[in-house]
Structure formats: C-alpha cells, structure tokens
C-alpha cells in the first residue's frame, strides 16, 4: 500500500508544539522508571547468560559431571576452554584376580588384566577474555556439565583476572554454600 505523507498546515504545526508539551508534562509527573545502581539492582538477572560454570555431580558436589570428552573445547569458536587432564594408572580391582582360583587346573592361566588408565580432571580453564558467550560449549556438552552463570557485575583490573579455573570455582562455591 503506497501512501502519501500527511501534510501539515501552519496552524496544525503550532498546535503540535502544545501537544508535545502536554506529553512532556504528563511524563514529568509520572513515577521514575530508571534503576539507581548500585543502590538498586535490576530484577531480571536470573535470565542473564554470563560466563560458563561447571556443574557438580548430584551425589558428589566436589567432582563435576564432566566426562572429559573435550567436545566443548573443540566446539568453542574462540578456543577459550582448556582441559588439564592427569592420567593415572589404576590397579585392577582384586576381586577380578581372586576369581580364576576355582578352575585353576583346567583353564590356562589368564593373562594379567590390563592396567586401566583413569583420566582425572585437574583443572578446567576458561579464558573469559576471549569468550563471546555464544553458548556453543553448553549446547555440545553431552552430559550437561556446563551451565551459564548469572554473574553480570564482573569487573577486574587485569586480563589475568578473567582466566578462570572452573573446577576450583565449583568447589569453592560448594564449600561456601555448605559452610554458610
């Protein structure tokens, strides 16, 4: 629909100035809608998506749900996730060795069970300086081990302050919540 712009006569123009003044006057007596930070805070921070945090296991809040698959680090467009993994050889459980005793005579001796390598998450490093808060990591995590924090009042003086060790943060948070 192609319309014509409405034209205005001088009289209408002068009237418009008073109409505008009425609007301004009306707003002058309306209550204030601004939030006076830091004395007040906005109330919608629960939906704010801040930097990521690790999610603890339900039964053991000191370890995270993370299964060390490394998919988040691979999916991240800015390469800001780094997983520090320690490999530890674990002895096979003794129960497995005790079992062959019963049929020792017939069966040839079984080869010694392979030593298992357990991978332990030492640190989960997030370089928040580079993070674009895109959420790719949270979406790709297969076990929902990552979540967004609602930390919107983050401030610091150096870049180093924004390199977070998420595992430690998670533990600290739990300790603070259990002691307090």
């Amino acid at each position, binding site marked *: 629909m192609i319309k014509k*712009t409405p034209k205005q006569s001088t009289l209408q123009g002068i009237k418009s100035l008073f*109409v505008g003044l009425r609007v*301004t006057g009306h707003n002058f007596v309306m209550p204030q809608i601004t939030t006076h930070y830091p004395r007040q805070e906005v109330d919608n921070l629960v*939906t704010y998506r801040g930097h990521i945090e690790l999610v603890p296991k339900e039964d053991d809040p000191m370890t995270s749900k993370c299964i060390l698959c490394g998919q988040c680090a691979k*999916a991240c467009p800015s390469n800001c996730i780094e997983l520090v993994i320690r490999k530890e050889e674990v002895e096979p459980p003794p129960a497995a060795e005790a079992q062959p005793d019963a049929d020792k005579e017939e069966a040839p001796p079984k080869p010694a069970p392979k030593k298992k390598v357990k991978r332990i998450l030492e640190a989960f490093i997030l370089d928040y300086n580079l993070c*674009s808060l895109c959420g790719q990591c949270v979406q790709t995590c297969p076990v929902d081990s990552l979540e967004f924090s609602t930390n919107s009042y983050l401030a610091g003086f150096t870049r180093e302050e924004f390199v977070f060790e998420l595992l430690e943060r998670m533990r600290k948070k739990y300790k603070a919540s259990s002691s307090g």
Partner: protein
Amino acid sequence: MLHYAQEQLQGDYYTRAFQAGAQEDTLILNMGPQHPSTHGVLRIILELHGEYILRAEPVLGYVHRMQEKMGEVKTYPQYLPNMGRVDYLHALAWNWAYVLAVEELLQLEVPERAEYIRVITCELNRITSHLLWWGAYLLDLGAFTPIMYGFADRERAMDLLQIITGSRLTYCYYSFGGVTADLTPQFIDGTKEFCKYLRTRLPMYKDLVTDNMILRHRVDDIGIIPVDMARRYGVTGPNLRGSGVEHDLRRNTPYSIYDRFDFEIPAYEECDALARYLVRMDEMEESLSIIEQAIDSLPEGPVTPPKMPKVIKPPKGEAYGAVEGARGVIGIHVISDGTATPYRIKLRSPSFSNLSLFAEVSEGILLADAVSILGSLDLVIPEIDR
C-alpha cells in the same frame, strides 16, 4: 622536531585522493570518524562552499573485522556467533539469513514451532532496532527526550529477548534446523503484554514527534531519493519503501512462514526523509501485528529437528539465504566444498548499499540536512564494514 614528508602534511590517502590541493572558496571538512551523528566510526569527507556541500565521499573500513574471512577458518556452527556482531541492532535477522543458507545446503526441515519462534523473535528484534533508530535519529536532529522514551520501551523488548536468548544485543539464538531454546510462558505472557503496551506508546510518539512542526521542517522534502537512484545503488528495506516501492522480502519472496500472516507493507511515495521516517513508524505497528498473530497460532512441538547430523558437513554446493532485516535485504551466500568449514561466505549488507548513495544525494544540500539524511538512512556502521 618532527619532520613530515610534504605528502603527509596533506592528509591521509583518502584526503589526498579526494582533492589535490585547496581550491578557492571551498573548505574540506572531515565529518567523523568520531562524529556524534555517524553512530560508529564512519567518516565522510565533505567539500563545503559556505554551508553547502559540493561533494561528499564516505570513507569506510574503520571497523572492518574480516567477517567473511573468518567464515573460511571456522566450522559451520562456530561461525554462528559472528552473525550477531555484523549488525548488532538486528542480530536475529543475520542469524536467520545464515541458518537459512546452511539449512538449504543440508536440506534440513525446520519444525513448525521453531519457525513461529523465529518469526516472533525476529520481529521483536526489528522493533528494538527501529526504536533505537528513532531515538538516535531525533538525537541527531537535536531532540533529546525521544531517545529516553525509545530506550525505555526498547528495554522492555530486550528484557523479553533476554529470557530466551540469554543476551541483550548480540544474539546467537538460531541454530541449524531450529532454535536453541524453547519459549517460556514468561516470555509469551510478557510479549503479549508488550504488544499491548507499545500500542499505547506509539500514539504518544506520534503526538510528541511525528506531528511536531520542528521535526517536519527538518525532514520534509529533505534528501530526495528518486526510485531510479535507489535502484541504481541497490537500496532496499525502509529506504526503498520510502521511495514508493513496495518491496519487502517477507512479501515478495516469502521465506519461512511469512506467507501465513496478514500484514501490510507500508510505503510512501514522497522519497524524502519524512517518508522513510514514516515507513519505519508504520513498520513497528505491522511487526506488532505479526507477533500477535504468531503467538495466537503458535503450535506445540519440538524446536529442533528430530535427526540432527552430529558433525555439520554439508555436501558440495552453494546456497543463498536472504531475509528482510530492519535495514533491508540481508543476503548470505555460502559455498561448501564438502568439509566441515565453509569454502566461502559472502555477506550482503543492506547498509553498504544504502550508504553508497549518500554521495549523490548530498550534492548541493546544506550541511545540517546531511545529518538529517544520514540519520534517515538508518546506517549501522559495523554492518557496512563487516
């Protein structure tokens, strides 16, 4: 003491190329890169004769971030967050153009509910974009109050979008084949309320600003863009509709489910800044009506396709996704060579075409009107430079 080469004293490359040596009676002026009315780092070199502009030349590239090149080194999903940064005002339209192209490559079917969610959020984003333009344009023209009203209302829409997207400006919400999060009841109720609320505010905008005599004098008959000029430069969006052409991709080549909604394409035949202003004001109302219709007929169901490939590796080929953004046609051309990384991504930004006609439009006009014209084009500088 510092010594400069004779060349350096005559300014940078653009200044020297603009005019060699001074001419009698004219003044060369740099408008920008830090100028309050360019909203970003846009620089325009002007040759003035008194108050009149003889020649104008936009200088671009101050916020060039190699968005297209970045596409060639990232995987398909990794490029998604870039889209919100190309145009920070209508980020969801850019999101949409990109997922549209990749979905075409992958032959992905988008679930019904996801289509509706895309329409609702994209239109809401269009309203926030227009509200910001409205406030900022009037600020350029010297009216301070409207931007306060505009921002107060825009804030409400951004709060709504924050509920589902988690961000307020550079959204990264659409994913291949759907959206990343479903709507919450809080969002739906809030949006219904917002539509009602904004409908009470728009008449106030009209009383305060649109009908105002001072505004009329600043925009009426200023910056005439005839249809043929608009076509020559590839102008799209509200700027083209302000020149009396009813062109809107949502109507002309309906993508997604836009053909199911009943809405008008506002266009004005005067070709001046006032026409472009009115197109955007009318468009906000149309967007409200689209949102209301979409919420009323929102179907139940999933928001992501049932079978998603684990690694996104589109087959060889190319696809073009085009959507109607707040500033015009946003087009993204993706070429795939069968790997997980795009071979080439070309971004067509509407602001680039809209700005290019400024040199021609501004010939012979007053300097103060140049500000009015620039504002009426609704430029977003990061989108021009990409």
